[in-house]
Each structure stands twice: as C-alpha cells, then as structure tokens.
C-alpha cells in the first residue's frame, strides 16, 4: 500500500471508515500522525478526537498558551470559573502570532436575564485583545461560569487572494446561579489579516477583562481536536 505520509487524499466517501485494511481511506485528508495520536490506534478504544494540550489552574487574570502544536484540525478552549463576587463580565483573547494584528473584530449576542443585546468591537488597534465574552458584575458566590471557544482550522497556512482566509473562532458561555441572575452569549471572533498573516495560530493568550485575580478552582484547558 502506498500513500503520502504527511496527508492522505481528500475523500467524501466514509463507508470504509476505520477499516484497518484500508487505513488511508478510513481517515481521509488527515495527517497520518493523527491515526496514532488518540485516533485510530489510540489506547482505550474510545477513538475520541479530543486531546488535552494544556490545563492551567493558575488564578492570574491572564494565561498564555505557547508553542501550540500544529497537528490538530481545531483548537477548543474551555474556561470554568467558580463563584466569586468580582467583575466576571468580560474577557479578551490576544497575542495570536504575537504581537496581535490590528483590525480584528468580534461580535457578541448576549442575554442577561430577559434582556438581549449586542456588543460589537472592531476594528481594533494593534496589540489590542479581541473581546470574547460579555456579562455582568457581582454574581454571588454560588454562581458558576463556563466559557468555550473553538478556533477552526487554526493550523492552516496563510495565503493571498480569495483562496486564503483569516483566523476565526466561535464562542459561547453561560454564567449564573440557581436563584437570581443568569447570562449567556454567542460570540463571533475574526482576526483581520490586512496588515499581515493571521494563520497559523501558534500562541494564544486569554485575559480576564478587569485584570483581577480569579478565584481558586478556576480551570482553563486548551484542547486539540483531530
């Protein structure tokens, strides 16, 4: 059997998926390394395409993921923060391809209790973080908040003309407590490559908006999705 070792040919037919006698067809357009990396030959038999890249339990407002592996299709970031009375409303991401490019934008559709609203940000100045979430202050200690963001095809190469694109992400989150206030949001996030390439993403910083320390129990995890 002969096939390219870096990447197999794209195919839409998946009826032979996971067939070990036809391995390349079963894993179309994937890097061969992913077959070994928790995929086809992963231990435990779960076959899950999700792997942890790094988990941080730091309570600093900002955390930076560096040297992000370029071996996954998508990045998935999950941030869980336990109850606290500080401003939990906003957080930002920045430092993609440090320094961050000028001109990016984000748009956030949010709901706080029964009120729906829109927050747009863009174009942004150089080295300015793109807002990822919006919320409100002073949620009680019984509250919880969970955020997740997905950067699709973050490891693609930059290019030019309409055959290229800029980095983008989709985010969503929820915060609230069982007795009073709740909030949810959906975020569109696009970095503008007008002043340079925005792909691939090699470094990512996520920063709590007002810079205060986060409560003990905060967990921030960056996953790779094969």
């Amino acid at each position, binding site marked *: 059997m002969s096939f390219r070792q870096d990447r197999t040919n794209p195919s839409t037919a998946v009826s032979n998926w996971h067939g070990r006698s036809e391995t390349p067809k079963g894993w179309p357009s994937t890097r061969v390394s992913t077959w070994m990396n928790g995929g086809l030959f992963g231990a435990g038999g779960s076959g899950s*395409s999700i792997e942890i890249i790094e988990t941080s339990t730091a309570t600093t407002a900002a955390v930076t993921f560096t040297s992000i592996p370029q071996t996954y299709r998508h990045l998935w970031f999950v941030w869980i923060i336990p109850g606290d009375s500080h401003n939990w409303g906003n957080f930002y991401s920045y430092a993609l391809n440090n320094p961050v490019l000028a001109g990016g934008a984000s748009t956030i559709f949010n709901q706080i209790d029964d009120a729906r609203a829109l927050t*747009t940000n863009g174009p942004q100045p150089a080295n300015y973080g793109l807002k990822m979430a919006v919320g409100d202050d002073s949620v009680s200690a019984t509250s919880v908040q969970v955020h997740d963001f997905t950067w699709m095809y973050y490891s693609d190469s930059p290019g030019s003309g309409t055959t290229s694109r800029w980095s983008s*992400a989709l985010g969503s989150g929820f915060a609230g407590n069982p007795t009073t206030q709740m909030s949810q949001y959906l975020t569109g996030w696009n970095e503008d490559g007008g002043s340079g390439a925005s792909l691939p993403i090699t470094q990512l910083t996520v920063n709590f908006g007002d810079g205060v320390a986060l409560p003990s129990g905060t967990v921030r995890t960056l996953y790779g999705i094969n």
Partner: protein
Amino acid sequence: MALTFIAEISANDTDTENLVFTGIPQTYTSLRIMGIGNTSYALSQGFNGVFALQFNEDTAALKNAYMRQATNNSSVLSNNPGTFNASYGECGSMSGTTPDSGYYPATYIIDIYNYLGDSTYGNVQYFSRSVSATSHSSFYGHTAYFAGTYKNQSSAPGDTPITSLQLKSGFGNWLRYSKFSLYGRD
C-alpha cells in the same frame, strides 16, 4: 462525550456550490459538523448568505422547517418565527466577498440528532451556531442560533437513515478555503 472524526470536505482548488459528506456511518448517537466557510457572492449584508443543509441530498419541497435567533453587525434582530415546508434546512450564514474580498470566514458548529432512522425518536433534528465578525460596519458580521428538522420519513416519521449531508452555498459558491469536518458523537 466521545467525539470521533469521520471525514473532511473542502472546496479544494475551485469554488464549489455543494460540499457533500456521503457514506455516513450508522454507528453513532449523533453527528457534529465543525467548519469554516464563505461564499464567492458579493452580499449586501451577512444574512443574505444562506448555508443550506440538505439531508440525503433530498431537495424536495415540504420536507424541512427551521428558525433562528440572531444579530447582525448593528443590532439584535427580531425573532424569526420560523420557515415551514422548505426544501432545505437553513443552518448558517456568511459575510460574502464585499468585506475585503472574502477574507472573513464564518464559523459553524452543527449538531444533528436522530439520524439513524429510528422512528422511536421521530424526525431528524439539528441545532446550529453560525458566527462571523468583520471590521466593516455595514451588517456583514452576524451571530445566530438555528434549529430545525427534516422529515426523514417513508412509512413512519423518522424511519429513513441519513447517509449523506449536503452543505450548500445558497448564493454563489463556497470559497475554496471553506472546509468542514464531520464527527460522530456517543
């Protein structure tokens, strides 16, 4: 939740109207599509672009229903009460080529339930998130939740398995950088 990669499709070297996943395994509880895309069409605003999802490449009328909650780049949009008896399931939008020649992709996550043809659970259902943010102020960015259903029925509601999913660019073609991956979920 286990998420298992099934296949990837892209427009490759040519802008393409339809991208199709075929031969979908009938071994998962549900499916998830994750991807990026934009249309070659010069839209007047983001929601003029339509990401049409077609099940089993069925383009017949009276088969789909869908609704959405959304914002464009300037305001929260009025609730869309829903579209019935449609020939496709709308599950997203895009910004087109007006803002910077199409550099801004939209990003999508689409979950599909009851795809196995088990009539116990009724017709196919889907839930989608579709977003794009542009630096241009004229309504090209958007955030939206879509939900809908497809009438996969021969003799009973939901009794026809879904073996293919067609991702259609409703105006223009998917730009060649558009790419989608299909996952099975247990």
